[in-house]
């Protein structure tokens, strides 16, 4: 509750800074009480606000926990630059997420929101927070394994072997051996599970079933 109060109290400050900049044309920053620039303090608040924006497909996890938000900058005039990265190239949720970010920040009084799309480095499930993984599990979705289980089937190879015939043979060999990592059932915890389908209801998920409790479940793919 305390955090929420602090955030709510801060909102008018953002708005008034922006208003002041607009009306006076001033570019200077009002220093915060602790001596840091207001912009730096505001960036932290904006991170907190974005942490309350749910993923539209999996609402138990926020876009920050998912690792989609890469950078937040607040300009002297109060305008906010948010850099996001797509999960999958064609994920239709990205447009909804972009709209949700703008809407959330507008609701908190940030009048100017600029969104930037960043492709590189490419999003990876390694950026998902532990809190996010726990939330997924509680929701019945097995969280992604860490990249020690290499989904590309490539990064474990020595760089020099990539174009050699050994590397080519490994594409298909690893394709079959690595396509189904050990995944614990989010319902009973058993690792006695098997893949039903490499693709699921959204680009980020695969379908699994638990051989111990017999429940089917979604697995958030390592990516």
């Amino acid at each position: 509750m305390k955090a929420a109060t602090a955030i709510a109290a801060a909102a008018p400050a953002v708005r008034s800074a922006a208003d002041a900049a607009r009306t006076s044309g001033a570019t200077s920053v009002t220093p915060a009480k602790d001596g840091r620039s207001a912009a730096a303090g505001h960036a932290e608040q904006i991170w907190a606000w974005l942490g309350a924006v749910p993923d539209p497909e999996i609402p138990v996890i926020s876009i920050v926990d998912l690792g989609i938000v890469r950078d937040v900058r607040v300009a002297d005039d109060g305008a906010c630059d948010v850099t996001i990265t797509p999960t999958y190239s064609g994920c239709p949720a990205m447009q909804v997420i972009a709209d949700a970010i703008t809407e959330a920040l507008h609701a908190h009084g940030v009048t100017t929101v600029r969104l930037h799309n960043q492709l590189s480095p490419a999003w990876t499930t390694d950026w998902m927070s532990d809190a996010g993984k726990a939330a997924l599990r509680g929701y019945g979705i097995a969280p992604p394994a860490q990249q020690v289980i290499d989904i590309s089937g490539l990064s474990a190879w020595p760089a020099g072997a990539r174009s050699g015939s050994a590397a080519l043979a490994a594409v298909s060999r690893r394709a079959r051996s690595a396509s189904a990592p050990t995944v614990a059932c989010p319902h009973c915890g058993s690792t006695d599970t098997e893949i039903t389908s490499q693709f699921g209801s959204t680009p980020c998920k695969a379908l699994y079933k638990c051989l111990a409790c017999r429940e089917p479940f979604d697995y958030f793919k390592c990516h």
Partner: protein
Amino acid sequence: MDHKVNYLLRLGDNALILSQQLSQWCGKGPALEEDMALTNVALDLLGQTRMWYEYAAELEGAGRDEDALAYLRDAHEFKNCLLLEQPNGNYADTLVRQFFFDAWHYFLIEALTRSSDARIAAIAEKSLKEVTYHLRRSGDLMVRLGDGTEVSHARTQAAVNELWMYSGEVFAYDAVDEAMVAAGVAPVADELRAQWLAHVGEILAEATLTMPPADAWMQSGGKQGRHSEHLGYILAEMQFLQRAYPGAQW
């Protein structure tokens, strides 16, 4: 047209036409898992299309956006390879077309992550995990169908034989491709072709399928805008809304 714009449009057109074709299976896949897989792959390819078109439109600077490129160009302006406009046919036809494409796409995208053009390298980096997943799946299914029942084996072999002559166009470089190679933007054809032949050969062998001769005569022309009649039908459906209601928005 600028060589790089042309090259980007070829990448985008390949992805878009295949995505559109795969979307036709939505709700009609032979199994629920296959239905979801094809539509997911279609979605990945659509996302990649948008990244290529967005960059092409920026470089072109002619005021066209990604939608104009997708919906307002006629068949002769599309630069996709002929393989991708081949009909969906039966499931083996769709799958073999996918496998031939995925194998090339994977090795190409992997090489493009080292492109001298930073934007192309970033798009490739974003796409690499997706196309790897695609190749893994289509290779798996080739083995399952080829080394499956008598019927699945026969249909898959027939599809391999039928589509083989469309598999070489991606390696037939013209002035556009050569300019990209010279600029360090794109990889050389010979290396890609060797990788493709080795991988496809290995999967076909595992699938108990016979690989047609590598030096067989190959179709070409799609990259230069000379298409089969199939593309016209694909575009007629894909572009209908924007043609009938110009500027209509969702």
